[in-house]
């Protein structure tokens, strides 16, 4: 077992936050898995989308850390969907089921791509209040797997796992990054062939985001300055694709900064979500004290001339 899986923090996460399974499709083998924490009165929670290899619990440090500050956080794990249409429709049904009109989505790698696709899909109905995209991309052709993607469903699990594992940076020296890789390898190992094949299909099937449809969405781009699976070229393309987006860079963090540098990632998430605190799309419940402070801060006038 990896150090993270054995850590007190992770064990307390698993023992206090129940895992929920929700079916929203006609096919009752398609199960969403959720971990949720924070006040139910919040109607625009932060939803976390995992990368191809990850399960919902890879965001346990966001669920624990942010819910302690009053945020409502829901980490999800996708059912076995094979097409983008299935995914966006399925997620919409999940939001309907949870009675959530507008949410903030934090997505990493495949999760970030899916978050953009969902924002694009729902650009008229505006189900997305904001996006936080971490180490991600907007066009699957960068992987040059579009031809083989349709055959992933019948590939043996070992082959698929190798495909993903190949992208993990093994030269990492920072202990937090090494631990995060160990944990993700464990998660990957536990995935069924079907689950992994469906994620990789979504990841590699020819598909791209039309950024003009996301023009009105508030976006935070998060990325690392050390080695990660995506080349710096791809990361720069993301920035060019969303020139208005705010950029949150981390010096290091590897592929999974939400695990390896969770304190910093959580600070970025808080700063991003703060501007919603006083509005209808707030992601947390404020205490009386905070409410008073915030309205005071808004009311302070013209001290400097």
């Amino acid at each position, binding site marked *: 077992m990896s150090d993270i899986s054995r850590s007190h923090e992770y064990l307390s996460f698993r023992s206090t936050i129940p895992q929920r399974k929700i079916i929203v499709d006609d096919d009752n083998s398609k199960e969403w898995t959720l971990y949720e924490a924070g006040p139910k009165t919040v109607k625009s929670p932060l939803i976390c989308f995992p*990368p*191809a*290899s*990850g399960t919902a619990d890879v965001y346990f440090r966001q669920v624990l850390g942010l819910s302690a500050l009053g945020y409502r956080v829901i980490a999800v794990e996708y059912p076995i969907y094979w097409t983008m249409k299935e995914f966006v429709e399925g997620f919409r049904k999940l939001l309907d089921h949870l009675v959530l009109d507008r949410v903030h989505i934090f997505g990493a*790698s*495949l999760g970030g*791509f899916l978050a953009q696709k969902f924002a694009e899909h729902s650009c008229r109905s505006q189900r997305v209040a904001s996006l936080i995209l971490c180490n*991600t*991309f907007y066009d699957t052709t*960068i*992987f*040059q*797997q579009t031809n083989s993607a349709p055959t992933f469903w019948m590939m043996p699990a070992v082959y698929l796992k190798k*495909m*993903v594992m*190949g*992208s*993990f940076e093994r030269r990492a020296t920072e202990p937090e990054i090494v631990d995060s890789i160990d944990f*993700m390898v464990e998660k*990957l190992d536990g995935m069924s062939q079907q689950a992994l094949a469906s994620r*990789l299909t979504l*990841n*590699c099937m020819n598909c791209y985001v039309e950024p003009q449809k996301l023009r009105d969405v508030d976006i935070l781009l998060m990325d690392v*300055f050390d080695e990660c*699976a*995506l*080349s*710096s070229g*791809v990361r720069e393309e993301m920035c060019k694709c969303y020139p208005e987006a*705010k*950029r*949150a*860079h*981390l*010096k290091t963090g590897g*592929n*999974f900064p939400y695990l390896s540098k969770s*304190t*910093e990632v959580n*600070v970025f998430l*808080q*700063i991003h979500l*703060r501007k919603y605190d006083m509005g209808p799309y707030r992601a947390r419940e404020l205490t009386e004290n*905070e409410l008073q*402070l*915030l309205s*005071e*801060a*808004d009311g*302070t*006038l*013209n*001290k*400097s*001339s």
Partner: protein
Amino acid sequence: MASRKKVLLKVIILGDSGVGKTSLMNQYVAKKFSNQYKATIGADFLTKEVMVDDRLVTMQIWDTAGQERFQSLGVAFYRGADGCVLVFDVTMPNTFRSLDSWRDEFLIQASPRDPENFPFVVIGNKIDLENRAVSARRAQGWCHSKGDIPYFETSAKEAINVEQAFQAVAKNAMAQESDVELCSDFPDPIKLKDDQAKPRENCAC
């Protein structure tokens, strides 16, 4: 190889409330100024790409809450700072006297490797105002006593010297960065296989 690595410099702006930390950051990054005062809650950051000695560097500038009751984010973001800008208002002597405690607070929280030579810059802001109360000499004296910290007199409102002050902190931070690279990094391993030419992206994990 090591010197071609992309560099991210984290710079923290500290000082009493109302001295113009947010205004300095906005003037430097966005070239904007507003007379309207709004207290900063917690912290905020902006990024700007700058050239330092022919190298493209990404500066991440952290604007912090001057008022203690708004410091809700704690000091987690002090960690890993490469430079620090201490700001006071030249018309308010008490904001100048606070510099000592801001500097101490920073050194305790960020605990840099080499506190004696940490790249600080001091800014005396609001020189566009008439009622000046802290002389340049007095400020320079303090900077000198703290290990010759560079001192700049600025006006965020009129964009005087703002660029220069931030450029100085970036330059000094880079100088430290390259020192570290020289003494602590292992040399890059010799590669037997050239993986640089690999055209395909790794399948995202």
